């Protein structure tokens, strides 16, 4: 069912000239597990160079990304890398472009009239800004959870099966299995298993809705999950459950999360990026480091002021 207007093919070539002469159109290639000789999973996690001095290929990377809305510059020249199976937290004051920046990893900015992204974003080294990238395929591999839970007005089961069905999954037993696995992973299965098909996704509590939305993303079997303040609309207990969930998901997925809650960033993330607004009100990356270091021993005075609550 991948026959939409947004469906195009992708080549590995980044150079436009190379791309145009590449005779073999292919979709995004399957995920590459960047565990080379002499590297351990832990190296991959922290992104530290291995003994031989060769840096691991990051799962996702932004290279000199700037984003404008019309004439307004919202994000200026951000470059960063996220190693596979790690959690990166984006923190910073309101309006510093965190959501805008997050949306460039699954090209959701394409949907906003007037938004323009320059620079390059890579998934497994493949340039996502290339015109021949299939955004449909990209968004399946890079899922997104929104600030406000947005379950579809249909049953819990249909919500979770939505993504797989749209790409042609119809085998009943396989879908059942996928739905159960996704809901289990999202820590919702035991609460909803008795009326999966009868109960609407809208009839759940806010925290359950958000976990349903996470399950819905997991069902499309993504590699990267983007979360934009996923717990900000939730009560403390639901928030804890979602945080717990994130730590479990880290074993399988690469996660980028935007949060205003610094304890949350400290609790769940491996590394933290601090964004700030410049004089021109454009957001930029001030500092990125291991979460512990960034919170306890930041290099930049602005970061120090922000994490100690002196501004923002």
């Amino acid at each position, binding site marked *: *069912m*991948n*026959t*939409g*207007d*947004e*469906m195009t093919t992708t080549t590995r070539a980044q150079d436009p000239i190379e791309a145009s002469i590449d005779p073999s159109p292919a979709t995004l290639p399957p995920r590459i597990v960047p565990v080379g000789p002499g590297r351990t999973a832990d190296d991959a996690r922290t992104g530290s160079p291995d003994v031989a001095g060769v840096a691991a290929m990051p799962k996702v990377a932004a290279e000199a990304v700037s984003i404008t809305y019309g004439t307004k510059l919202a994000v200026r020249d951000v470059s960063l890398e996220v190693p596979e199976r790690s959690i990166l937290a984006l923190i910073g004051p309101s309006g510093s472009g965190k959501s805008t920046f997050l949306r460039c990893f*699954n090209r*959701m900015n394409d*949907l906003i*009239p007037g938004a323009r992204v320059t620079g390059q974003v890579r998934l497994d080294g493949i340039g996502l800004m290339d015109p021949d990238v299939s955004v*449909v*395929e*990209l*968004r*399946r*591999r890079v*899922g*997104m959870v*929104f600030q*406000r839970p*947005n379950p*579809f*007005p*249909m049953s819990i089961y249909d919500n979770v099966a*939505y*993504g797989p069905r*749209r*790409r042609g999954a119809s085998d009943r037993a396989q879908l059942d299995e996928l739905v159960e696995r996704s809901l289990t992973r999202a820590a919702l299965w035991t609460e909803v298993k008795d009326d999966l098909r009868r109960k*609407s996704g809208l009839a759940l509590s806010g925290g359950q809705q958000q976990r349903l*939305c996470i399950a*819905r*993303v997991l069902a*499309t079997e993504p590699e990267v999950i983007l979360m934009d303040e996923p717990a900000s609309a939730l009560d403390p207990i639901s928030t804890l459950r979602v945080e717990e969930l994130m730590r479990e998901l880290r074993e399988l997925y690469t996660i980028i999360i935007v949060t205003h809650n610094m304890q949350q960033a400290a609790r769940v993330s491996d590394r933290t990026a601090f964004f700030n607004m410049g004089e021109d009100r454009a957001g930029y990356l001030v500092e990125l480091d291991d979460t512990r270091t960034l919170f306890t021993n930041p290099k930049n005075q602005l970061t120090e002021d922000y994490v100690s609550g002196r501004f923002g």
Partner: protein
Amino acid sequence: MAVVGEAAGLAGLHVRPALRDRLDLPRRVVFLAAASMVAIVFVLLGFIAWQGVQLFVQNGYPIGSVISTTWSPQDAPISFGVLPFVAGTIGVTGVAVLISAPLSIGLALFLSEVAPRWARAVVQPALEIFVGIPSVVWGWLGLTILVPFLRTNLNGLGFTLGFSWFAGSLVLSIMILPTITTITYDAFRAVPQDLRTGSLALGTTRWQTIRHILLPAARAGTLTAIVLGLTRAAGEALAVQMVIGNRPTMPTSLTQPMTTLTSQITLDMGNTVFGAPDNNVLWTMGLILLAISMIAVLLIRKLNRSGGRR
């Protein structure tokens, strides 16, 4: 009154003012207006219902006599079969909606999901002007352009086409297009943006999102639009009458002349004497039309309620 006095004496809070005080002047005016409104509607309904049964009460025709396909109000044997008109109304309206609904829903989808802002800014006022064009103008256009066009250009296809069921449905379909389009458009706009982004973020195409999220979520509104289009078409008299040919027989073919409840009523009402059977049967036809639109109104209410609950 004793209770009121006691309460007032106790706290001075639970004072229950007399009805006269509660209905102060502005309220009384509004209340009167509303009440007279309701009264007028009921009087009219009662009058039409009363007139609608006079054929059976005053003129002594059995109720079964109108359930016939023979319409012969002047020449013996006299017969007041209204089935050709009922079938004609249903037929011409049904085909009009079949033509108009897909076009309107497509246009509404385009406006709501695809069109750039400037296109919306052009099309929306155009639709409003569309609604404002009087039906006699549509009929006149149909009579002077559509019917001759059909006659001269489509006759090579092996049938004659001029004043016909098809011509009537075509004129009607254009007339109800803005109604269905604007209401469907509103239904699409009422679907939260979150749902669209949520669907697209899961790696679905725009078309899949329309098909599986938007259309189901806007289902009640779309059906309401279609039913409103149906009632508007069923009630339309003038434009239809001018292009349909007005032949009081059961409709058999899209290419043949036919007739409807409304066009027969407008044609005959001036030529009959109040109280005579051939006048009373027109009231009966009016009553049938009223029943049809009441059913439609009930349907809309039911659709909207079930839509709101989800």
